[in-house]
């Protein structure tokens, strides 16, 4: 397949052909069964990251009385984001339109047939490309909710997430991957450091601040009630991330293979790095630390996955593990916000570090001749990356704040004190885990 996603639309329309032998299929759209096989599976893998991956990752970390409510948030968000995506989200994000937003040519997926091919992915059916991108929108939204676990009304959550997908996610996806101004400006984001992790991370931080701390924060035991669930969740996130990062090559080729390799290496390295950092500073290596490290490594390598080599992945892994450990413990304590499940500390910080790392370590040897980072002598790439980070932090942070304030005024964001003490499972859903 000719065009990797991050180089995207502009290049695609210009018919640029990457001069790598493996990519020699040329610019004419033609469905390849191998690429299609891989991308269907990659879509299933990313779906598995949300359901049950993220749902369990989060459910294991809350208290027992909120475990079902936490899964309900992920389930409902994925369902809602999926429906919004086929109705209007995909067309806003991935049709040409302009620098800021796509057009409405695929509203309600009109015109989509078994033969359709998007100019953004010339060797697979457009239905597969659309679905693959849908799973990204769904998981990004669902990640945000970790920051406000244990205290948000289910109805408010639905309104928030629906609006957030349309107002925050779709534009940012368009800017970076759909031919928008960040992509044409040369921003590197292979699989979603900006679109997914920074975007969700800052939204989580803002949401945690707007909703306020959990009751009991700082004196009650808010530790995870069942980390076995979290271990299952992270494991499936890890496996699914192969679809997330290697799938972002949009083809079954050497690029996908390299992306898979550095993804796994960064995850393993960061898991060990967080483990060691915690062991040294707190006396014991916790299971929560090991899995948090893995997620930090996975999130951090994401924007760089198709551009860097194994040595860079080892470095990125160590930095991700140590920095996210610091951000989720000492730093969070200092700043005093209650980001329940460390969405900002892991995804936000990881996304920022990884997006910068892509600017530093991207190398033509892996990424093709047009892509060069600091180590290839192109220091400007780091600035380009920085600009995209700042723009995304402002847009996502700002609109998250506005949406939440509006929803708060209209129906209220937070459950009552009694509901919070007795648990959301019983009060919001009428169920409990024995």
């Amino acid at each position, binding site marked *: 397949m000719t065009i990797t996603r991050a180089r995207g639309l502009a290049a695609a329309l210009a018919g640029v052909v990457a001069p790598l032998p493996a990519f020699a299929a040329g610019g004419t759209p033609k469905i390849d069964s191998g690429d299609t096989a891989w991308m269907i599976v990659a879509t299933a893998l990313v779906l598995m990251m949300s359901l049950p991956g993220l749902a369990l990752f989060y459910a294991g970390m809350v208290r027992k009385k909120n475990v079902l409510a936490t899964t309900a948030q992920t389930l409902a968000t994925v369902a809602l984001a999926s429906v919004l995506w086929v109705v209007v989200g995909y067309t806003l994000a991935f049709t040409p339109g302009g620098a800021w937003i796509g057009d409405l040519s695929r509203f309600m997926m009109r015109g989509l047939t078994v033969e359709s091919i998007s100019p953004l992915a010339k060797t697979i059916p457009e239905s597969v490309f659309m679905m693959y991108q849908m799973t990204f929108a769904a998981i990004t939204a669902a990640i945000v909710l970790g920051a406000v676990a244990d205290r948000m009304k289910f109805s408010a959550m639905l309104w928030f997430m629906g609006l957030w997908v349309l107002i925050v996610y779709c534009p940012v996806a368009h800017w970076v991957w759909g031919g928008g101004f960040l992509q044409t400006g040369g921003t590197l984001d292979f699989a979603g450091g900006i679109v997914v992790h920074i975007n969700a991370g800052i939204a989580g931080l803002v949401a945690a601040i707007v909703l306020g701390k959990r009751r*009991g924060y700082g*004196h*009650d*035991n*808010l530790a995870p009630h069942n980390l076995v669930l979290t271990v299952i969740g992270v494991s499936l996130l890890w496996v699914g991330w192969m679809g997330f990062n290697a799938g972002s090559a949009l083809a079954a080729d050497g690029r996908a293979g390299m992306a898979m390799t550095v993804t796994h290496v960064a995850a393993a390295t960061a898991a060990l790095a967080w483990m060691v950092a915690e062991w040294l500073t707190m006396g014991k290596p916790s299971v*929560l630390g090991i899995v948090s490290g893995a997620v930090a490594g996975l999130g951090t390598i994401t924007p760089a996955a198709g551009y860097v080599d194994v040595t860079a992945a080892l470095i990125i892994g160590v930095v991700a593990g140590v920095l996210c450990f610091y951000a989720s*413990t000492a730093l969070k304590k200092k700043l005093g916000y209650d980001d329940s499940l460390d969405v900002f500390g892991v995804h936000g910080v990881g996304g920022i570090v990884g997006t910068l790392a892509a600017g530093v370590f991207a190398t033509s040897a892996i990424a093709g001749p047009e892509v060069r980072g600091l180590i290839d002598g192109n220091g400007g790439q780091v600035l380009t990356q920085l600009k995209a980070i700042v723009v995304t932090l402002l847009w996502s942070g700002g609109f998250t704040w506005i949406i939440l304030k509006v929803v708060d005024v209209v129906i209220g964001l937070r459950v009552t004190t009694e509901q919070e003490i007795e648990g959301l499972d019983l009060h919001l859903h009428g169920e409990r885990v024995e």
Partner: protein
Amino acid sequence: MKLVTAIIKPFKLDEVRDALTSIGVAGLTVSEVKGYGRQKGQTGIYRGAEYVISFLPKIKVEVAIDDRDVERVVEAIKKAAHTGKIGDGKIFVMACEQAIRIRTGESGSEAL
């Protein structure tokens, strides 16, 4: 008759049971409880937030016995449950007016 209730550290249960059976106690009932006392729970730190685990897991052992066995039973529990470290627990003795074995209907000391 007396009902002796002991709150002990969980990992001492097997020793306490063995001690009691070795002095002829034929039955007892145990349950999982949580204790609060001089032994302060550890201060936990979970991702930068400190908290106090104020209740610690303990085991409650209840054994109904004849009046004349009180001393021996209390001694046996005391010895078996002892570590000398804070949080070892307590033994309470209360009067039990009647005991009945459901299976046979026997009552009093017969039923124990």
